[in-house]
């Protein structure tokens, strides 16, 4: 199977190279109109077909690796290093991306899937898709070259073939790890598509903004995958690393967050281009930067430039990525310089206080946040280079610098939609902002009234201060969005005679893009409320003998047993804890410590009980070597569940935004027919 996999990879590389060269040649011939022995259109079609065949070849290689994992083919070094016989089936799948070579193969395969779909739908716009397909083939050539020459996944084990493999890293033996990396990679790789369309549209001087419309679904789906991937990673860190948190500003976390920020900025700023013909150069560079940041993230974590608890594979492929990034950047700059006249924008604004301006400020804040994170991630390297001292840039730096920027961005989330396009008036501001402002300040007062104090020992308590600001701004933004829904639904309700709920549904269906966006903003608000809860985390640690008790918040944990278990994969020790609240037994928790047999590595399995109010998060830290009694650490983490609920709302909102709006004319006619309400105002209002 190793030979079959290697052969499939070579074939895939040859097909991708043909796709790139033949595609580029055909497009060149079409652009210049030079006569050729073969029709350029036919040449371009052979390139497209080569791309489709290349996907089949990469799929065969991926299948070969998965087959090798499942058949325990330890003659392949990668399988020997990342799997073992006792590894459960689901985790054998995750072995595919647990190491360097496998994750690169996953990247190439996902790129192949995106390319396959793109090439199948080429009739949407044959020429633009030919450009995009050729650019994607260029990206594919890079990844396949790395797989064939620098990080071959089917390299054979030197020496006698061992009976069993080294096993999968225990940190990766968790259900989320089966879906988190593919999600993240779908997000990373997916940005290749809008990048290819943007670069292709620029190369061919594509008229208008249709390329943005064409790539909108791609960009949103990609953004959704990246968002889901980041949140799944947070949940994995929360449930597996056992420190009670979900985000540690680790370089790998930062690497995934940076393209998310620029991608989010792109999703907002393209609206300016679509509606006003503005920011054309800006949008092109935003998507260029987003793609480059996805490569940078891989470079940072794979090349060992920075250390991370999330980096499970490091090697010397950094140089390949540096070279590729330089080539991509050079191509982007060259194309931009050559075609910049095509990106001349109609820059005209009527007021500093308008929806247009809010989009500009939104981009400013998102890009600043991206810079801060990039700066913090790279500063240790810079410091070592300049003054010879390596420093740590950890959570305290980001909390002080990035959190205020994030809160400002949250504020803009509420302010932006309330500002009318073109210009605003004092009357309009008063009408739109009074209720959200009252909600915001009421929240501050309520927080203070219930005892949340932003000062401690005569100085500012940063955590509590930010929490109050986050709660207040979140409630203000939520009120603002809600008022937008109610205002729109109220108008429809008056016109159609429907009740408010039906009117709200109709409002959303008539403009899914706008109101789907608002639902996403509500999701963000819910996430921020959840994040703000971290300021009030509490924890207690105690050695618990049989029937000893530990109290954290309203919960009392009683140790009713301490036992051991084992299976083919690991030995485990766990404590059985009865949990009481108000003197009544509520449930039982069993935090666990495992020692994986093959790798002999310990792993904490946290027990979590989630409610809407807080998570009871219990860690078994091990047995005291002197007394052999379990040491238990219990955290009470407020509002953590809101983070995951916010993600669900965010995903829902994205789906809504992806659904095409219904035709307002048809909708209004249908809705108003029974009540015979005049339709003309509704047509105006619903746009």
């Amino acid at each position: 199977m190793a030979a079959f996999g290697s052969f499939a990879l070579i074939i895939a590389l040859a097909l991708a190279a043909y796709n790139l060269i033949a595609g580029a040649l055909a497009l060149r011939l079409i652009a210049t109109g030079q006569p050729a022995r073969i029709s350029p259109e036919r040449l371009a079609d052979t390139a497209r077909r080569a791309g489709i065949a290349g996907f089949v070849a990469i799929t065969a290689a991926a299948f070969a690796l998965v087959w090798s994992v499942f058949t325990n083919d330890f003659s392949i070094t990668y399988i020997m290093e990342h799997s073992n016989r006792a590894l459960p089936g689901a985790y054998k799948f995750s072995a595919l991306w647990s190491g360097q070579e496998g994750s690169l193969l996953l990247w190439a395969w996902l790129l192949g899937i995106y390319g396959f779909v793109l090439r199948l739908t080429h009739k949407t716009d044959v020429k633009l898709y030919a450009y995009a397909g050729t650019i994607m083939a260029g990206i594919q050539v890079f990844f396949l070259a790395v797989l064939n020459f620098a990080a071959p996944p089917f390299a054979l084990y030197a020496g006698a073939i061992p009976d069993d493999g080294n096993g999968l890293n225990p940190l990766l033996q968790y259900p989320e790890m089966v879906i988190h990396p593919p999600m993240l990679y779908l997000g990373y790789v997916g940005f290749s598509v809008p990048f290819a369309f943007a670069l292709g549209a620029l190369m061919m001087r594509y008229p208008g903004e249709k390329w943005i419309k064409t790539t909108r679904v791609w960009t949103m789906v990609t953004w959704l995958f990246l968002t889901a991937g980041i949140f799944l990673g947070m949940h994995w860190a929360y449930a597996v690393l056992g420190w009670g948190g979900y985000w540690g500003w680790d370089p790998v976390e930062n690497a995934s967050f940076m393209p998310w920020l620029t991608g989010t900025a792109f999703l907002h700023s393209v609206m300016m281009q679509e509606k006003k013909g503005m920011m054309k150069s800006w949008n092109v560079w935003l998507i260029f930067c987003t793609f480059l940041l996805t490569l940078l993230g891989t470079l940072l974590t794979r090349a060992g430039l920075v250390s991370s608890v999330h980096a499970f594979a490091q090697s010397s492929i950094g140089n390949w990525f540096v070279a590729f990034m330089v080539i991509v950047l050079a191509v982007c700059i060259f194309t931009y310089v050559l075609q910049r006249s095509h990106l001349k924008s109609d820059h005209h604004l009527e007021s500093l206080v308008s929806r247009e301006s809010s989009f500009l400020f939104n981009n400013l804040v998102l890009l600043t946040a991206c810079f801060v994170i990039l700066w913090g991630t790279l500063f240790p390297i810079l410091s070592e280079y300049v003054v010879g001292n390596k420093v740590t840039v950890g959570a305290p730096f980001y909390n002080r610098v990035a959190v205020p920027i994030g809160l400002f961005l949250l504020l803009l989330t509420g302010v932006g939609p309330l500002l009318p396009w073109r210009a605003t008036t004092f009357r309009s501001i008063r009408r739109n902002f009074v209720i959200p402002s009252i909600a915001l300040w009421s929240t501050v007062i309520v927080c203070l009234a219930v005892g949340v104090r932003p000062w401690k020992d005569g100085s500012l308590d940063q955590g509590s201060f930010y929490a109050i600001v986050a709660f207040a701004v979140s409630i203000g933004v939520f009120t603002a969005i809600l008022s937008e829904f109610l205002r729109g639904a109220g108008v429809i309700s008056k016109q159609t005679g429907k009740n408010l709920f039906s009117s709200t549904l109709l409002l959303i269906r008539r403009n899914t893009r706008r109101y789907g966006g608002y639902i996403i903003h509500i999701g963000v608000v819910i996430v921020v409320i959840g994040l703000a809860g971290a300021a009030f985390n509490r924890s207690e640690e105690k050695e618990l003998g049989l029937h000893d008790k530990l109290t954290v918040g309203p919960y009392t944990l009683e140790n009713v047993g301490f036992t051991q278990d084992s299976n083919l994969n690991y030995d485990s020790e766990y404590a059985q804890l009865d949990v009481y609240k108000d003197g009544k037994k509520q449930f039982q928790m069993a935090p666990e410590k495992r020692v994986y047999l093959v790798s002999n590595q310990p792993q904490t399995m946290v027990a979590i009980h989630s409610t809407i109010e807080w998570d009871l998060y219990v860690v078994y830290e091990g047995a005291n070597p002197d007394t052999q009694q379990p040491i238990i650490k219990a955290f009470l983490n407020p509002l953590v569940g809101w983070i995951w609920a916010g993600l669900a709302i965010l995903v829902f909102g994205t789906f809504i935004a992806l659904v095409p709006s219904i035709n307002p004319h048809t909708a209004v006619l249908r809705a108003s027919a029974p009540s015979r309400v005049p339709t003309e105002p509704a047509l105006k209002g619903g746009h």
Partner: protein
Amino acid sequence: MKTRNRLSFLVKGTQALVLALAVCFSLGATDAGSRFTDLGHRLMCTCGCSQLLGECNHVGCPESGRERDELKGLIASGQSDKEILNWFAAKYGATMLAAPTGEGFNLVAWIAPFAVFAAALAGTILLVRRWSVGRTHFAPIEPSNEDPAAVARREKIRRETESGFDEGNQP
């Protein structure tokens, strides 16, 4: 006159709110154990787990227990936060500090983000002003020579993304 009275009322109202908040904030409680928590979150565990000392609890950590005891001892000895941080940096190296100090080259780490933000903010404001001034006084928009289909498409997108309930669009 009416506008001036309204403005005066707003200013006084804001002043009263700020005063009320200042009073509320100053009622903050004190917590004797907070220094340990605070300093524990400004130091890294040195075992290589990349976690803050105050949060490192992984099984069998060879360093965090001893380092926490050292932190407790230093707090009990009455040293200031800065002295304690310097003590750890001297013993374990600068990488034990969870964030760059505010001295020397490290200061750049703190200044750069705010400098970039300020420059970007100023640039954005200038850009918006220039574009809006150009629009209203100097550069009336010429009739577009774009493809009518593209204009129609843009108009459709404008309709799709605009609420229609903004001022002036009320039915």
